[in-house]
């Protein structure tokens, strides 16, 4: 029995960063030298793990809870939709996120930056998108932090996002940045994306409609995954 394979559209040149980007020092020894081999998508690439609802409880989307008291910093609500390039929502997909605290310190043994840990903040969350592809997190705004890429390099404030989407081919790990951050112009990781419109996709929009008056600022961050290929279904 032949199986039709619903392939994903090819990556648009310039919308993804290269592997080698010398301004980001760590890529120099980790980027492959050989260009990748083209792999025609098969069932392997167009399928992927399915995480059913209820896997992560509702508390998992509230990063301000679960400790003795509230964390320090600006309370923010980050919300948006996971979509594909054809604006179709991606329901039921797992979104994991992690971030440093308001002082710019990660709760991770490798982070020894001279900024205090917050006993009331871990910075880890997960959520599964609803039937409309929507997600929503409550957290605090992360601080900038220094890293050893250059003599005075600081990462802009950012939240790490990990999204599965429907398939192995749609898997995305990215970072969300905040509008108006002066560090973006100097950040090698952000600047590695060649296309300026694609770079803009990484910056959340201030969204008062998602905030709560006298309580939390709101930011919108939509995540756009690969869409399906234009050619019609074909048997494998």
């Amino acid at each position, binding site marked *: 029995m032949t199986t039709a394979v619903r392939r994903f559209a090819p990556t648009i040149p310039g919308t993804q960063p290269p592997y080698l980007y010398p301004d980001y020092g760590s890529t120099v020894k980790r980027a492959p030298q*050989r260009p990748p081999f083209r792999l025609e998508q*098969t069932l392997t690439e167009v399928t992927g793990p399915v995480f059913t609802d209820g896997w992560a409880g509702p508390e998992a989307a509230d990063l301000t809870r679960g400790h003795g008291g509230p964390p320090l910093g600006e309370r923010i609500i980050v919300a948006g939709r996971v979509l594909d390039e054809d604006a179709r929502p991606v329901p039921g997909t797992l979104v994991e996120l992690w971030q440093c605290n308001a002082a710019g310190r990660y709760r991770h043994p490798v982070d020894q930056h001279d900024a205090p840990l917050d006993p009331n903040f871990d910075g880890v969350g997960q959520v599964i998108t609803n039937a409309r592809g929507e997600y929503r997190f409550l957290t605090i705004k992360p601080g900038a932090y220094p890293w050893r890429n250059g003599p005075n390099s600081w990462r802009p404030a950012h939240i*790490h996002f990990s999204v599965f989407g429907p398939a192995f081919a749609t*898997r995305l790990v990215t970072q969300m940045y905040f509008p108006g951050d002066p560090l973006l112009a100097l950040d090698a990781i952000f600047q*590695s994306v060649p296309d300026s419109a694609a770079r803009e996709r990484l910056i959340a929009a201030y969204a008062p409609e998602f905030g709560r008056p006298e309580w939390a600022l709101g930011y919108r961050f939509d995540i756009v995954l690969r869409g399906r290929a234009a050619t019609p279904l074909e048997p494998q």
Partner: protein
Amino acid sequence: MAEKLIPTPSQTVGPFFHMALERPQWSDLTRDGPAGERIVITGRVLDGDGMPVGDACLELWQANAAGRYAHPDDTRQDRPLDPHFRGFGRVSTDAEGRFRFVTIRPGPVPGRGNALQAPHIAVAIFARGLLRQLVTRIYFADEPTNETDPVLSAIADPALRQTLLAQRVNDADPPTYHFDIVLQGKGETVFFEV
């Protein structure tokens, strides 16, 4: 035709992903007792200097022992689903760049023209210094159907093909296969654009 949306670019996973992504139970794809031949896969991730990559995250995706994916797009009724096997694993490397996971040997799945592909595991590698994940596949060196696998056959250089073959290193129960991932330089693994 409607205007397409610009896709969200990838950014590096960074060095602190363990706090959110590390789930030790996900390194054992057999934890729910699936059917099939249980195997252990070990390896090291190395950089362009041959140094260990101690902060990599590997993700694995594979079919069950019968060659069926636990996903709605795999509708082949002749290959049964296994309710005890999701087919997804995640493991991070230790300070020496080593990883280890336990799984069952996947069955073959169809490729182009409905010809069967040889059994394989899809792998995505995330790390500091990788702005985007690397994609490769683990095949098994002792699998006779590798000869007719379309992906392996498309790689002309046998030395490059060799980088995709996990070598059986013992006959223990379960047996161990070894698969190193060399990101750059001498012995560089074959990576794919999907």
